[in-house]
Every structure is written in structure tokens, then in C-alpha cells.
């Protein structure tokens, strides 16, 4: 068991899957000779060559479409989009093609692509590099959407995504690429479905995904110091949602906070609250509270940006509210 960085975990998954199956290729901007914006493919161009680590021009919609077409003929492309904001350019091939081809061909053609893209806010990148579009992808039938919160899932979910026959969107996070965590030395697959209880507790459930799990964990530490036992649930997959694990946790704690870095409207939190209302409404002892970004394009100014994006204290305040402590 070694402690490695998130980017190293992604790189290792690429390396193992490229070695395992010659049909696996990686495509994206600057991923080859330049080594990848977040180093996730560093050194692989030298190891596997230009035919398998494919540097693309800045043409997101069409290189995604080329990956999709290749997947229809047996390749397993891992497509990197440098920022989820740029994935908007690829929505036609991704949503109108990859997500629909299996269905509209009556199950006769599948598109086993993986699209990896960082989808969070970093530091003062301003509005066009800071969109968080998880809620858009999670509403699209025909896709799988996963959000690894640390190196283990970043590694093991990418490996599963490459093997899976469905199109999988992996939403990473600019602020997590250097985060470190333990990953087993032996080959490991992490499933693409299923929420995870990352900290067990009895008084309140804090639900997060991707980076917001870490806000929930930090809030849980502070709550513990106040004598409150918080359970932290990592959704892991936004499509499909693991309704059972959410229900079981809420039936145990009766109180819920949902923390998302995305905006609230038609968002992850609204979906999770709908799930809770449908699954276990009468288990609730208090109104659920959402922690979310301000409903504005993300500003450049440091103070404004901080005010727009939720932090651990916001999660703590929300927990105290559902606990009736404020």
C-alpha cells in the first residue's frame, strides 16, 4: 500500500489499462508530448507512442466524436477534456451521440468511451474556467457519471470505466490533483456504482461528492469536538444515484445536509432531496439543508470567489441548523 497523489493514481490506471489492452488509447489536448496539463498521462507518450497517446488539436467536439466513432469499432478511448467548461463544446457528440447510440440502435452498437475532465473551482480562474456542470451530465440518460474524491477511486474507477461498455464521465477536480492517499500495490477495480459511508455517525448525515466530501469530513471533525456524531456519505456516482445507501443513512440519523460545489438550481442537492422524500420522507426529523455555490458566474476577485464557493464552515453551519443548535 503506497500513498500517491491523485494525478499519479490516474496515470497509473492509464498505464495499466494501456498495457492490458492494445485497444485502449488516450486522446486529448497536450496529453502526449507535453505530458498532460495535470500530469495524468506524463511519460506515457514515451512508453506507448503517438498512436496510443494521441495529442489532439483544440477541437473538443470533433475529437470527442472521433473517440466515440473509434469506440463503435472496438477501441476503448480515454478522452481528456482539459476543463469541464470546454466539455460544453463536446456536448453534441457526447450527449446527442455517445449517450444515445446504444438506445437508438436497439442495443446493437455501444460506445465504451471514458471522458475525464476536472470539474471544480480552483484559484481565481474566473467564470470560464470554473463552471461545475455535474448536474447537467447526471441528468442525461445513457451516461454514467462518477466523481472520485481521492486517489483510490481516481485509480480504481478509471480502470472500471475503461472496462465498462457504457460511456462514462469521470469528473475530477483541479484542487485535488495533488491530494495524496493510499492505493493498494496490487491491481484494484473500484465499482462505478454505489455510495460510500466514509465516516460513520449517528446524529446527522453529511452528503457530498468529489471535493465537497472533504468539506463534509472537515465539518464532521469540528462537529465531533462539539459532541456531535456526523456520518459522511460520498455519493461517488451521480448517475445512477445509490438510493439505498442514502435511505439507510437517513433512517439512522434522521437529519441531512447536502454539500455541493455546483449551483443549487436543478442541482445535485435538489435531486438528493427528491430521492430522500421519495424513499424515506417520514424518517426526517428536520428539513434538509443544501450547501451550494452562489447563483452567479464564478468571479475572479479572491474575496468574491471565496464568498461564491462553499467551505467546511458552511457545511458546519448547515449541520448545526438541521440539528437545531442555532
Amino acid at each position, binding site marked *: 500500500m503506497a500513498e500517491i497523489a491523485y494525478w499519479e493514481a490516474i496515470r497509473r490506471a492509464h498505464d495499466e489499462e494501456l498495457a492490458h489492452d492494445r485497444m485502449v488509447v488516450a486522446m486529448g489536448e497536450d496529453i502526449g508530448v507535453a505530458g498532460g496539463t495535470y500530469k495524468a498521462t506524463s511519460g506515457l507518450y514515451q512508453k506507448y507512442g503517438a498512436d496510443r497517446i494521441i495529442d489532439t488539436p483544440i477541437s473538443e467536439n470533433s475529437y470527442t466524436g472521433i473517440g466515440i466513432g473509434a469506440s463503435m469499432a472496438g477501441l476503448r478511448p480515454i478522452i481528456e477534456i482539459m476543463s469541464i467548461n470546454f466539455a460544453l463544446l463536446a456536448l453534441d457528440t457526447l450527449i446527442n451521440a455517445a449517450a444515445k447510440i446504444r438506445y437508438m440502435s*436497439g442495443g446493437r452498437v455501444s460506445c465504451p468511451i471514458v471522458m475525464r475532465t476536472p470539474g471544480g473551482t480552483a484559484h481565481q480562474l474566473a467564470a470560464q474556467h470554473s463552471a461545475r456542470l455535474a448536474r447537467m451530465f447526471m441528468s442525461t440518460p445513457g451516461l454514467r457519471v462518477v466523481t472520485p474524491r481521492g486517489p483510490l477511486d481516481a485509480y480504481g474507477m478509471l480502470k472500471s470505466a475503461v472496462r465498462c461498455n457504457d460511456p462514462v464521465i469521470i469528473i475530477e477536480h483541479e484542487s485535488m490533483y495533488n491530494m495524496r492517499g493510499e492505493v493498494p500495490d496490487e491491481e484494484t477495480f*473500484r465499482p462505478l456504482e454505489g455510495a460510500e459511508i466514509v465516516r460513520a455517525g449517528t446524529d446527522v448525515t453529511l452528503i457530498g461528492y468529489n471535493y465537497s466530501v472533504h468539506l463534509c469530513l472537515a465539518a464532521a471533525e469540528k462537529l465531533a469536538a462539539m459532541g456531535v456524531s456526523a456520518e459522511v456519505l460520498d455519493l461517488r456516482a451521480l448517475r445512477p444515484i445509490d438510493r439505498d445507501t442514502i435511505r439507510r443513512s437517513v433512517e439512522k440519523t434522521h437529519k441531512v445536509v447536502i454539500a455541493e460545489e455546483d449551483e443549487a438550481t436543478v442541482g445535485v442537492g435538489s435531486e438528493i432531496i427528491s430521492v430522500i422524500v421519495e424513499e424515506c420522507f417520514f424518517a426526517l426529523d428536520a428539513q434538509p439543508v443544501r450547501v451550494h455555490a452562489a447563483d452567479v458566474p464564478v468571479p475572479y476577485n479572491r474575496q468574491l470567489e471565496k464568498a461564491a464557493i462553499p467551505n467546511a464552515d458552511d457545511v458546519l453551519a448547515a449541520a448545526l441548523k438541521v440539528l437545531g443548535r442555532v
Partner: protein
Amino acid sequence: MNASDQKRLLREMIFYRRFEERSFEAYMERKIGGFLHLYSGQEAVATGVLEAARCGHDYVITGYRDHVHAIKAGAPAREVMAELYGKVTGSSRGRGGSMHIFDPTVNFMGGYALVGQPFPLAAGLALACKHKGTDQIAICFLGDGANNQGTFHETMNMASLWKLPVLFVCENNLYAIGTRIDRSTAVTDQYKRMCAYNIPSSQHDGQDIDAVMAAAGDAIAHVRGGKGPYFIEFMTYRQRGHSMSDSNAYRSKEEERQWLERDPIRIYGERLKKAGVMTDKDIAAMEKSVLEEIENDVVRFAEESPEPRVEDLNKYCLDDQPDPRWIGPLAQGEQHG
């Protein structure tokens, strides 16, 4: 080409025309729903290009005017008609309809409704062929209207850069839906646009199947020979409107009359008569046998086939039999709590 192949090609084009006209009738009877885009008038292009290709081996992909391309590529005509009827025996099990015919058993990889979307998909199919080292190529049929999408320019750049084995077939029928090409496109000769991407290209008569086959044969030899993509433009004309909801008010009667004189089936039939391969009587007998085949086999199959079951609504959205190792859910032991 010997006489029996010539007769077969003429019969194929007559069959495709009748298939389209018969689906028009079924549409008017409300047995076919949605949008229906007919290929009548352009038959020589798909028939000639795919005659020069290796159907079942090469990949074929196109837009929504896809029935004839699918059938010539090898999809059974009765399954294509059943798809128009929305039946479970259809090419796409009733889930796709007219615009989304798929038959991967013959490498026909679909009809698509987003104009220009097949460009990158075709280049991707070609990338896979190149990666696997087979001698397959990808053939992408699209209309002139698709060439004003961003995917056209993005894909041409990558296809040329990576020397992908893909043949782009531009069926220039002069109208992008209802807008004439000179009102939508700064450079009306489409093959000229390829100089920007260093892709060899040429323009040909799309109404004469012999000309189509000869030109496509050369283009396919170029692509299969590992020399990279080729862009081939055929001048053609659709005899019907863009789709069934089209009033066709944007074209002059005189223009339509001129193109009807250049009907590809008529041109080829006349040629075979002059060569002594066919007589008027032979052609009449051929038309009768096509009518019978369409009625007794193709339409009957579509009419008599069952509908998909409503309880199968959610089928085919994702892999219906996924490997639990990749999918999950997490076992209790894997939970870190």
C-alpha cells in the same frame, strides 16, 4: 462490368426508388411516423459508391436520409422497412426509426439527425481501422449542407493530419433543407474547400452511376492504399422535398423538370437499352418484380411484425448485462466507514 451485374445494378436502383415511394405511401397512411427523408433522385450516388466499396467489410455512416445507404451496405430491406414502421424486428428494434438505421452485422454504423455529426464518427471508425491494421476504410455520406458545421472543418483537419482511411462522400443536392447552396455557402463547389486541409478531392456527375463507380473506385483505392482521406463530391438532386413536411416552395418547376430529365434510373436504363443489355419489356418486367418483392416481402414483413413490448422501455439505455466487477455496488467490506 458484365451484363448480369449491369442488370443487377439497374434493379437495385429501381428497388430503392420503389422502397422510398412505398414508404411515402405508408407515411400517408400514418403507418410510419415522425420525420421521413426520401432519397428518390440520388440513387446513383449511394449505389455506385458502395458498389465500388466492400460492403460488410468497410464501415458506412451517414445522415438521416439513410434507408438506401443501409440497404446497399447490406442491411435487409425488410428490417429497414420494419424500422420505419417502429417494429421490434426493425434494424434498430423500433427504437431509432427512419433517421437512425443501424446494422453493425454489415458495419452500417448509423444514420444521424445532427447535421455534420457523422464526420467525426466516421473519422473515429477510420482511426479504429488504422489502429487495428486492417484494410477496412470508413465511408461517410453527407449532404452539402453538413459542410457548414464546425465538425466538418475540425474533422477534415484531424483526418488529414492523422492520414485516416476515410472517404468523405458529399452528395451535393444543391439545397440545405430549403436554402439553396449559393445563399448559404461562400464556396459552392464543395471539393474546392479541401485545399484548406490538404485532402485530395474531385467533383463528378452524381446522376450517372457509371461515372460514380469509376470516380469512387479511384477514391477508394487511394484511401485503402494508406494515402489518407479523400473527399469526393457528386452533383445530384432530390426529387422530393427535404422531408415529408416540406412544401418544396423554394425550387422552381423548371429546375425540377431539368433534373427529372437527368433521373439516374432513366439514364442507366437508356444506356443498357442502347447497349442491347435490356429491352423496354425487360425493364417493365423488372419493375413488376420489384413491386412484388416490396409488397410481398418487405412491406408484409413490416406490417406483420410485432411492436416492441412496453415493458422493455428501459432496455438498451445502458449495457443490460454489465460485469459486476466494474459496476458494483460497493461491497460492505469496501466501505471505508
